[in-house]
């Protein structure tokens, strides 16, 4: 789960990390008040979960409170990559002497939290990693021991030669590690960590991603989810316990299992089509889930055909068949449905579907190529 910048700032602040002043606003009046309080030139930043906010006009420099209000009214309500902006962050435009990058990421290779820091900060760190990897200092933390003082020192010395700044950075490393561990993060990033002309070390922008698997046991983190900042169909899917990701194609997919769902999308592409979504109904074959899946997919008007690919293991294919029948009786599905079922209880599944006049396939390739052909015909 991605947090908004202002939420990430709140977690960092709670851990004691020095941050630039500022606050979040939902109206131009609020933005103006924040700008007046912090004084001087401010930055008004759209709070949405997409990159490229600046290019889309979601980040503006305001020289006074009136301008802050004006830009806030422009940005609030604007749509960036399909997402409506409901909140802006108003922060002072800090005077900056140096910019660094400090990131802490859950690393698969070492199976540990790994710090990545670089004094080439303020820019895209992936670009730095790709072009000048020697500018990045990496350090894996053994969670049995936590971040040790000499490790924090090593990271701090990679950023600063000035001893006061290095000490400030050491403290920030410890605090960021605490934020990461206590909030179940898979990423916690300060970019940039700046020094001001008078030598202070300050976090300007923050990014935090929380491991979705933490949310069940951590209601305090779960409430940070801002559903207004997500694709509405994905929110609906999650509420129905479905894993759904909207894509740009026209072949709607309903599959059980994440690996098979990806392989199905790949096969759509292989046969010349474009998948409209990733959708995993999971292991348990509740007919209700199938109904919800069909509701979400049919709401997407670009979908020209719906493809079911179900391999019954734990999933009972007759339950899925029943779900399809229930759904098509509840609401009219205007696009053709291609169904591939195999595995547990498949005879009963075939009987159920054929009894309402639907045809069913047994083979994945046959089903996918048929679905692609139907989508092309409809396009």
């Amino acid at each position: 789960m991605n947090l908004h910048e202002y939420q990430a700032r709140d977690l960092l602040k709670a851990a004691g990390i020095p941050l630039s002043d500022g606050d979040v606003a939902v109206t131009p009046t609020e933005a103006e008040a924040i700008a007046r309080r912090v004084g001087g030139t401010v930055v008004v930043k759209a709070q949405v979960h997409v990159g490229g906010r600046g290019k889309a006009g979601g980040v503006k420099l305001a020289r006074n409170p009136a301008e802050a209000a004006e830009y806030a009214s422009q940005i609030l309500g604007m749509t960036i990559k399909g997402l409506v902006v409901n909140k802006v962050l108003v922060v002072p435009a800090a005077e900056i002497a140096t910019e660094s990058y400090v990131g802490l990421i859950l690393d698969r290779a070492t199976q540990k939290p790994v710090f990545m820091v670089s004094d080439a900060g303020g820019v895209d760190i992936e670009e730095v990693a790709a072009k000048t990897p020697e500018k990045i200092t990496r350090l894996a933390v053994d969670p049995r021991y936590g971040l040790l003082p000499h490790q924090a020192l090593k990271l701090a010395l990679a950023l600063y030669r000035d001893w006061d700044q290095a000490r400030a950075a050491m403290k920030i490393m410890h605090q960021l590690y605490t934020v990461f561990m206590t909030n179940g993060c898979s990423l916690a990033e300060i970019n940039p960590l700046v020094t001001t002309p008078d030598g202070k070390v300050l976090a300007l922008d923050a990014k935090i991603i929380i491991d979705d698997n933490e949310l069940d046991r951590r209601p305090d983190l779960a409430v940070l989810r801002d559903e207004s900042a997500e694709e509405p169909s994905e929110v609906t899917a999650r509420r129905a316990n479905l894993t759904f990701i909207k894509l740009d194609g026209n072949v709607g997919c309903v599959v059980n299992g994440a690996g098979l769902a990806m392989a199905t999308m790949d096969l759509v592409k292989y046969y010349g089509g474009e998948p409209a979504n990733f959708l995993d109904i999971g292991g348990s074959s509740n007919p209700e889930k199938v109904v919800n899946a069909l509701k979400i997919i049919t709401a997407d008007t670009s979908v020209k055909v719906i493809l079911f690919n179900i391999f019954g293991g734990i999933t009972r294919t007759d339950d899925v068949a029943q779900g399809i029948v229930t759904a098509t009786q509840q609401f009219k599905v205007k696009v053709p449905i291609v169904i591939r079922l195999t595995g547990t209880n498949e005879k009963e599944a075939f009987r159920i579907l054929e009894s309402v006049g639907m045809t069913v396939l047994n083979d994945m390739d046959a089903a996918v190529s048929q679905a692609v052909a139907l989508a092309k015909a409809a396009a």
Partner: protein
Amino acid sequence: MSIWIGKETRLVVQGITGREGSFHARQMMEYGTNLVAGVTPGKGGRTFEAKVPVFNTVAEAVAATQANCAVIYVPPAMAAGAIEEAADAGIPIVVCITEGVPVLDMTLVMPYIAERGVRLIGPNCPGMITPGEAKVGIIPGSICTPGPVGLVSRSGTLTYEVVHHLTGNGFGQSTCVGIGGDPIVGTNFIDVLTAFNADPKTEAIVMIGEIGGTAEQEAAEYIKKHVAKPVVGFVAGQTAPKGRRMGHAGAIISGSAGTAEEKFVAFEAAGIGIMRRPVDVVELLKSVLK
């Protein structure tokens, strides 16, 4: 046995009285797995299916039944503790089926089991099956048949799809291992490849990967250097967008890393037979196994 499980497996099911645990415990018993004990704290003293004694702790189960393999079906927040309990009780092979285990929990589980020399499969995996001998996990026994093909996969139903093609075309399996779709898993491709390479019953290997991470690339490198047996491979997620988690916590393309295409490139460089579709496994195996 082929690898890790077989006739000599003495299985304990952790979470045996739960909904998932009891269902799959019955399935495993029906398949012929030697299920010797169950564990559910607070339910010690009961008997499961009139046959299997239930204990409060794994240590008690091991003392009473000499269990040598554990499979875990407990809620996500309790999974790390269940793995540690099995490891501490001296179980050498632990299979964790549970999906949704917080990744930070796994960062502590990994050194804990390493210190005790325990092999962990999973979490968030379908487990293992040695057809005709033992099933530990949730892979449907009906789609498998004994034979010379070792299969290792990061996913569940996609594995079944491939096994379905294998069995349907006369290619039986030595052992099928689902290593799981999480960013941190106890057993990786290389561990399984090493075991298959050393297993006299395995003549060819099928490897099914996914987007995310670099496990497939490292496996390819390992195969190039160390694996003499023929390997064919697939990578799911060729059409996945960047930065989105495709169901599995581990199936996410970060920045430019972890794409299906770079994994296929690594496969090709290692001489692995490329499956562009799951069904391709049949023709590829025909060409390497006469």
